[in-house]
């Protein structure tokens, strides 16, 4: 009697834990989503129509934040800087990474693991540390880059990379590319290696040259990864913050020429203390990224039909 009772409770516990387990396993995410994502998100939306001084003091201002945003010169400078950076970054990073990956994938290349590690090594350095490193490499007198340029041109070159307004974004770009080309290359390499080798053989038998093979076999084969890398690169570039902020010693650079959207958001929210206006900037960033991602998605889909 006693034994059957304990068996019954055991079975009910057993069934109970089986049914409930999946819910318990995803509970941390659900909780987190509700408390630390959904709630701050609605708060950010509410804050974007308020003017605040620190987290305590705020008043309702309606759409004034967004109206001011449209006329805010600094905001548009930040948008222009960020967009310019993103464009230049993608136009240089994707072809360079893909080109290097194709080369490295070739059967004639020796010492592949060495190359792979060399290219990947930069990704292990975080962007703050890259910024600290590049602040020294770009320094006018003792910096490695100027010494290298002097050695190549055989003329003393002392470019003040970080003080010239025109060179502010190119300097950031240099550090950004150094940080990320190798990483993108590893992804492309993995994609290239998964392209069906028989397709190349078939193309060769049909008389396709190298270029035609690239165009008709390689590119379609790595298309998903290529689109993914472009999207991730775009989103990352629009969120640019650490590199310029630390490179220019926690400032927006000469004449604010390295001011990015996230940097403007951060300075507005936590140096000026207006969380409301910072939220408005944040939402405009969401709109901007969503817009660019949508355009890319449409373009990518159009490529599908042809």
């Amino acid at each position, binding site marked *: 009697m006693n034994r059957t009772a304990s068996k019954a409770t055991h079975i009910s516990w057993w069934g109970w*834990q*089986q049914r409930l*387990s*999946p*819910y318990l*396993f*995803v509970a*941390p*995410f659900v909780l*987190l989503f509700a408390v*630390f*994502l959904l709630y*701050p*998100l*609605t708060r*950010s939306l509410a*804050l974007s129509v308020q003017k605040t001084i620190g*987290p305590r003091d705020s008043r309702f201002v309606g759409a004034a934040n967004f109206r001011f945003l449209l006329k805010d010169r600094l905001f548009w400078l930040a948008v222009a800087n960020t967009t310019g950076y993103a464009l230049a970054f993608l136009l240089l990073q994707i072809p360079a990474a893909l080109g*290097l990956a194709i080369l490295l994938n070739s059967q*004639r290349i020796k010492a592949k693991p*060495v190359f792979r590690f060399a*290219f990947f*090594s*930069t990704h*292990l350095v*975080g*962007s*703050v*540390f890259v910024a*600290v*490193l590049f*602040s*020294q*490499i770009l320094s006018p*007198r*003792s910096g*490695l880059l100027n010494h290298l340029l002097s050695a190549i041109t055989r003329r003393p070159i002392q470019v003040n990379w970080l003080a010239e307004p025109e060179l502010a974004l190119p300097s950031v770009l240099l550090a950004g590319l*150094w940080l990320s*080309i190798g990483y993108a290359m*590893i992804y492309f390499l*993995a994609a290239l290696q998964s392209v069906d080798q028989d397709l190349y*053989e078939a193309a060769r038998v049909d008389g396709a040259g190298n270029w035609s093979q690239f165009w008709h076999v390689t590119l379609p084969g790595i298309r998903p*990864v290529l689109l993914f890398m472009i999207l991730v690169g775009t989103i990352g570039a*629009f969120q640019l913050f*650490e590199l310029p*902020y*630390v490179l220019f*010693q*926690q400032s927006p650079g000469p004449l604010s020429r390295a001011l990015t959207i*996230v940097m403007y*958001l*951060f300075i507005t*929210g*936590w140096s000026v203390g207006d969380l409301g206006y*910072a*939220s408005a900037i*944040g939402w405009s*960033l*969401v709109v901007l990224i969503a817009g660019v*991602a949508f355009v890319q998605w449409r373009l990518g889909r159009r490529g599908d039909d042809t």
Partner: protein
Amino acid sequence: MKRPFADQPDSVLDYRAITPRRTDPRRVQLTPLVTFLLHLPLLLGALVCTVPLVWLVCATLKSGQDLFKYDFLPWDHLDHLTLDNFRKLVARDGFTRWLCNSIFLSCLQASIVVTLSSLGGFALAKYKFRGKAVLTTLMVLTMLLPAQVLMAGSYELMHHLGWINSYAAILVPGSVSVFGMFLFRQAMRQVPDELLHAGRIDGCSELRIWWDICLPIVRPMIGAFTLMTFIGSWNSYLWPQIVLQDEAKYTLPIGLANMMSLPEFQTEYGVLMAGTLLSVLPVVLLFFVLQKDFIAGLSSGAVKG
């Protein structure tokens, strides 16, 4: 395409063997040169990637004027190399503290995130439950949302919770990774269901099935994802900088970025470079330990994701 001579015996079945190959005599002669030319851009790229790091290591070992006189090492008097920069760095209060903070925080965060994300991924891969489709949609939306739009609201929340200047503000909101849940879902789908049922018949609870059966099978993914999370946590700057105010609680990125702005390091950048090197080294060491897992995990994610 139809293979020619498909009815022939095996040795000629391979059409590659019988397709006449036009061998261009010029091409054969060019091969060593072509091979060299193919290596050239790679070599250049690899140099561009590694030289700044070599330069960093050299800068930490040089003293005073040698920093400005030599690009890399003072070859004519190598006895001038010193560890002074490291000594000065450790003597400053702050740096060792930040190093310990970073190690503590990143290890803790990586273990929490890997545990909770693999649990979530396990549920998504191996169970049918109500709301699963909705959950997946929410996860995708979360990944698309730029985190910066949340910052003002989150900061306010941290303020109300009294978590400003506390590690809870970093650890708790970041304790599950949606990306990680997707990675583990993908990896755990390959675990055969029969194995899980066998475990159930032997009396394993669902939690033990996850821990004792599933996790050992997806080990490479654990290594890869641990490394990714550790690197992410180690290098994160914006949010920690917002919520940590006390200098004793700083992590390395915050501390080093502040150190860089001090006027004394405009001239004495050897110490700063020593700080940078020590900040990068733990990640590099961890990478070497988990390297194999990492490349495997990365490529599987890239191909299937």
